[in-house]
């Protein structure tokens, strides 16, 4: 199983390494959010109740997490392409362990999310954002981004295998991306949100990731505020991977 997972992952990472422009492409959005949005709303922090940090520093965890969601929610497109091209079936007629195919998806996604997140963090740092939580805080941020990415890539894969329609994935992603981002503390302090919106953020996994990461990047993190949402996110990721594995089995029955 481990060997199979390694070979399948290697295949996917090769694509990632050979197309570095793709990485640049996925960085355009976060850069826009960080620097355009960050500058446009720079003075938001002057609102009473926002705290004292710079707005750029404030939005970094949110932008990292949001970018992880945005790039992973397209995973289903790749899966669909593999199905249509016959690549998936080509693997399924070999003795390769079925789990290895799923593992490779998750690992490749984790690696690319890590690289993407690190670059965003470095860009932000170079522009003056500061992370008192230090390297440990950055590690937590990246783990949160990877977990949230797992949730969305697993979901996207499940949808892709189930409906096999690009339009459905496009529609679903457009529907989810902005509401999930804005019904969270990504760009706005919780205390300044309308009451009903604040209530909703508790159920938004994007917010769990943002809250845990922001707390971990703060000067003296409250461990409870990091762990609780992190565990919630981990459970959700496990559930989603399980669901997408189930869908994979259903796909196998319906080829």
């Amino acid at each position, binding site marked *: 199983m481990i*060997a199979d997972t390694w070979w399948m992952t290697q*295949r996917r990472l090769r694509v990632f390494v050979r197309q570095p422009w793709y990485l640049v492409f996925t960085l355009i959005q976060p850069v826009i959010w960080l620097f355009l949005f960050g500058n446009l709303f720079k003075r938001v922090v002057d609102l009473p109740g926002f705290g004292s940090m710079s707005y750029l520093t404030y939005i970094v965890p949110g932008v990292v997490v949001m970018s992880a969601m945005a790039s992973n929610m397209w995973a289903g497109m790749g899966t669909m392409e593999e199905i*249509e091209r*016959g690549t998936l079936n080509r693997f*399924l007629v070999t003795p390769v362990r079925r789990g290895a195919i799923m593992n490779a998806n998750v690992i490749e996604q984790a690696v690319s999310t890590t690289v993407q997140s690190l670059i965003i963090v470095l860009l932000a740092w170079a522009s003056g954002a500061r992370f008192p939580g230090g390297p440990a805080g950055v590690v937590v941020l990246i783990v949160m981004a990877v977990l949230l990415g797992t949730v969305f890539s697993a979901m996207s894969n499940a949808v892709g295998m189930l409906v096999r329609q690009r339009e459905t994935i496009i529609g679903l992603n457009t529907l989810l991306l902005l509401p999930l981002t804005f019904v969270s503390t990504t760009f706005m302090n919780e205390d300044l949100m309308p009451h009903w919106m604040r209530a909703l953020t508790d159920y938004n996994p994007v917010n769990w990731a943002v809250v845990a990461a922001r707390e971990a990047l703060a000067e003296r993190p409250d461990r409870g505020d990091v762990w609780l949402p992190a565990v919630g996110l981990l459970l959700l990721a496990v559930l989603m991977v399980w669901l997408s594995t189930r869908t994979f089995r259903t796909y196998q029955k*319906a080829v």
Partner: protein
Amino acid sequence: MTSVAAAVEANGLVKTYPKGVRALDGLSIAVRPGEVFALLGPNGAGKSTTIKILTTLTRPDAGTVTVAGHDALAHPERVRRVIGVVAQRSGADPAATGRENLMLHGRLYGLPSRQLRKRVAALLDRFALTEVARRPVSTYSGGTQRRLDVAIGLMNRPHVLFLDEPTAGLDPQARTAMWAEIGRLAADEELAIVLTTHHLEEADRLARRVSIVDKGRIVVTGSPDQLKAELRGDAVHIELRDEPSDGLAARALEAVDGVREITVAGRRLSARADDGAAAVPHALAALERAGVPAATVTVARPSLDDVYLRYAGRRFDEEVTA
């Protein structure tokens, strides 16, 4: 119990897809070791579904499947070790090179590195791929890609090789080359080849035995020669100048001595005659008298097309173009 002598034995396969489409309706086949066996039929007859079941991609609703002595339903993992598959859709990774595709495939069978490199080099050489081995597959021509697909299918030295529409989408030149390649593979006594095709010529040329599939069942099985020999006499195909009114042309032909098995499809008439050449003038005269003059007429020795017509009750290409 299934005899170990069979390369593939499938009995009573039934498969219904969601939405109630019955793809297979009690299909049974037996493939002998080392032979080239063709499933011949139009699109939608159930060939691809059969291949998917035999290659463990999907399971039938009913029936039994044995491949190279292994029960494909109880132990699909054993079957996967001893089969090779060249699917209709290539499945090769276009971003990776030909060599990388082969290497990965070999890894999935657990071949150790040194042995694998040797095997890959041998396959690249055998399929004239060495020159393009380090180029991404996306730059390959259709024929080259197909050769890579076959090389991939042979990676694990399979006992049974499945070729699903191996020449679909190839230009005539690449098709001829592919036929030659399959011919060479067939020379291997150990390797049974199961191919599907909707090209009569392909089945006729490559297969030792052919099963004609229609609507999820096998309608007839035999060697191409046997099947053709069962049809007595020549095939006479007549194309009329205008579409005849119901039964008019058929009645006219029935009156001609030595002409039988008349079928009409639009302007096309097909019939069988003991001596085609002798029957033609009489047939033409009869049609002329009936007021449905012929535009063209051909007389041919029986072909698999005629076999198909006889057993499936309609012409082959009607289905394909429909």
